[in-house]
């Protein structure tokens, strides 16, 4: 028996709030749901309340308001040991006085299994996590990556209804981090685990998630698939935090059929927008740096190359046009096509790549 069958369930947060003494509102009226079997990342800058949100789900902190459901059960007032979740800590939190085997068996022993059952389950996850042969080691005799696997194995062996991970890869070096995140994703898909994954690394969030919850100052800024978060950010904060963006301040001239006419770089463009925009609204036209192309021929506008930085797989330009400085990333650089600083270039982009956000 080498597979683990899990009864994964969804997780739902309804108007959850957490205040700390000292007046900090770490989590402020947060709502989101994690569909069963999906991986949701909580992404945001340091101190935005990701860890606190996760700890609220685990029951390690008690919410000051709102309700928390795991599956159909309202767990808002349940202590952590009755919530049936698994958690992987940033520091791994392996018990230093117990061997790898006993660390993994810890929760099983509480469930009054026979020794044979425990041995079988532990061996199964040792297999699953590539830890065979390490079961008699003590945690301090393991490498960082191995400790990470043990922490994961220890959580999985209990067949949690949902798995919570708090920056589980932040103590690993860059290469191992990429390898482990692929592994975690594969495992999560294969076992169909409901997972809430905290990270402040956007590439981790992008590569892992079914859904990303972007948080800022205790609030949810946007919830969406990685492609939505990146392509159609819901706020200036999200656009700025995820990847890089050019913000061009402008005003809507007219709105018709969910398309707005705006004036950008001296041209009038028609871009799609949501229905709540009105003529006269102050808006930002958001342009990702890689959707802009530079050319020697004609374009929407002309500009001067202020700075060109060659970075191997791409070239980063700073282009001055009118009173605006644009960042442009060219992912197809070759020697003949790198524009020199001071040269005049045409700026080209497609209307459908312009995303509108409400201004201040």
């Amino acid at each position, binding site marked *: 028996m080498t597979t683990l069958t899990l009864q994964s369930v969804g997780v739902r947060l309804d108007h959850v709030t957490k205040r700390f003494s000292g007046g900090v509102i770490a989590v402020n009226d947060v709502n989101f749901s994690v569909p069963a079997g999906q991986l949701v990342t909580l992404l945001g800058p340091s101190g935005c309340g990701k860890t606190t949100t996760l700890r609220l789900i685990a029951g390690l902190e008690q919410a000051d308001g709102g309700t928390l459901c795991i599956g159909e059960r309202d767990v808002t007032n349940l*202590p952590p040991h009755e919530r049936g979740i698994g958690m992987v800590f940033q520091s791994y939190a392996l018990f230093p006085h117990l061997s790898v085997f006993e660390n993994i068996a810890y*929760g099983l022993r509480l469930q009054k299994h026979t020794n044979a059952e425990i041995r079988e389950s532990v061996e199964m996850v040792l297999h699953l996590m590539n830890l065979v042969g390490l079961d008699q080691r003590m945690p301090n005799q393991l490498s960082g990556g191995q400790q990470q696997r043990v922490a994961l194995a220890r959580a999985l062996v209990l067949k949690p209804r949902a798995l919570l991970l708090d920056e589980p890869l932040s103590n690993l070096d860059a290469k191992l981090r990429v390898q482990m995140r692929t592994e975690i994703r594969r495992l999560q898909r294969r076992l169909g685990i409901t997972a809430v994954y905290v990270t402040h690394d956007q590439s981790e969030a992008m590569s892992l998630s079914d859904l990303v919850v972007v948080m800022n100052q205790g609030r949810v800024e946007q919830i969406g698939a990685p492609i939505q978060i990146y392509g159609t950010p819901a706020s200036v904060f999200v656009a700025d935090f995820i990847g890089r963006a050019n913000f061009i301040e402008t005003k809507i001239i007219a709105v018709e059929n969910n398309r707005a006419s705006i004036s950008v770089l001296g041209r009038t463009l028609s871009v799609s927008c949501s229905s709540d925009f009105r003529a006269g609204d102050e808006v930002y036209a958001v342009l990702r740096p890689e959707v802009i192309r530079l050319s020697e021929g004609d374009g929407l506008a002309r500009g001067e190359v202020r700075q060109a930085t060659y970075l191997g797989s791409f070239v980063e330009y700073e282009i001055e046009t009118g009173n605006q400085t644009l960042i442009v990333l060219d992912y197809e650089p070759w020697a003949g096509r790198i524009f020199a600083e001071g040269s005049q270039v045409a700026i080209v982009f497609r209307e459908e790549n312009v995303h509108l956000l409400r201004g201040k």
Partner: protein
Amino acid sequence: MPQLFSRWRRVDLWLICAVGLGILFVLLFIIYPLFQVISISVYSEGQFTLNPWQEMLALRNWWVPLWNTILLATIVGVTSTLTGFIFAYAMQRVALPFKGFLRALAILPIITPPFLLGLAAILLFGRNGLVTAGLFGVRTSAVFGLPGLVLTQTLSEMPVAFLVLAGMLGSLDTSLEEASATMGASPRHTFFRVIWPLMRPGLANSFLLAFISSVADFGNPMVIGGDYSVLSTAIYLRITGLYDHPGAAVLSVVLLAPSLIAFYLQSQWVGKRSYVTVTGKSSGRSRPWNDKLISGGATFVVILWAVTTILLYGSILVGSFANVWGVDYTLTLKHYLFIENLGLEPYVNSLILAVVSAPLTALMGLLMAYIFVRRPFPGRWLLEFGAMLSFAVPGTIIGVGYILAFNAPPLVLTGTATIIVISFIFRNMPVGIRAGIAALSQIDPSLEEASAVMGARLPTTLRRVVVPLIIPAIFSGLVFSFVRAITAISAVIFLVSPRWKLVTPAILAEINQGRFGVAAAYSTIVVATMITAILIAYRVSRQMGTTLELQA
């Protein structure tokens, strides 16, 4: 560069002098007296002899003091570790009111002579005790002996255990407890399967520290020991009652054994951090899902402890104003007037000698610490050994050693203030060493280098970088050397003389003569002095922008 070179040469010269001086002092005031004690037990009139040993073994019940000492120390090791652990757990994991007050209350036994608890226990539970006779109407001497000793020593060792264990509990990664909870463990299971096993080294350490302290304790056995004879008091009685120096030496050697064994185990357990400074910082938080039974039990123990402590110290305060304790509680100042008539000399002497010895202790500690921290040096082991002995050897043995070593030429010091100050310095040196190590290890050599690179000359570097970093730790070393000098009893009781009386032996004498009111008045003055001193020290250290580190 040239500046750096000349600087290092000067430091090295200074270091050689320092090591030489340190070794001389250690040989003279630690090793030599101990050697005298051992030699007099096997050497008489120029000949090797086992007579003193045979005489002792010939006594019926010769083993009783040894057995009593070890039994008491074992019990107190367990009880004080347990209460210390419960206290530490309650302070860090349970929501309790008045934590600041409780913390302050826990410090009292550290800054007051421990045998005051003995006196207080007599006042509460003795023949005329407020609780025994007053409340329940029983006249009993049951508190004298093992029960009283266990009570008083537990209360006086608990703060040390608390400091050690609170430090350890605070450094425990809380995510271990949380991980346990997320795997379905109840708080109780987590307590017994995660916290307790992880605390075991700290518990063992605290047990051994309490054991060592109990073995060395002299004051409480004198006050409340009754017929329960322990080695430290047996040694004292042999010298003062029977003038039997070889016999006292034999008992001293016997007493040395459990102390050194316990100390050896303790230093092995704590490893290289045998001079670790413990701070009673509380970093933990109470948890919303704490186990009711455990937190309730801990709260109960803490309340019981607090009430007992308040009652004990309170009885001394009240006792100092009561006309005749147990008979007539009308308030009077007669005990204070009695002391005033007798003269405040012992009290003043204690203050003077403590004030004189504190900076010397701190300096000596700094010197030793410098040698320990900065570089290995031939002869360093001797210094470390000496420092270790000064911590591990009970004061009673040091007292015996000093009267044997410095009663006759070449060095006659008995009866002088010098010998008392010297005993303070070498008894309290571990406190100074700890402070010194703490101070020096804070100074990364690169700080001095950075200052030099930025163009500061050595005097400037010292003034602007080194001294500000050292001062707080030296200050706390200073404060606790002072405290320990005032509260010391076991060694100095052999060294006081008609010219140089000290306050702790004076209190002891009053207790032994049954003048509890006078003893209580004296004690109240001492406690008030110590509290004032500590409050001033806290203020001063706050103004220096640091916190006073409690040193156990």
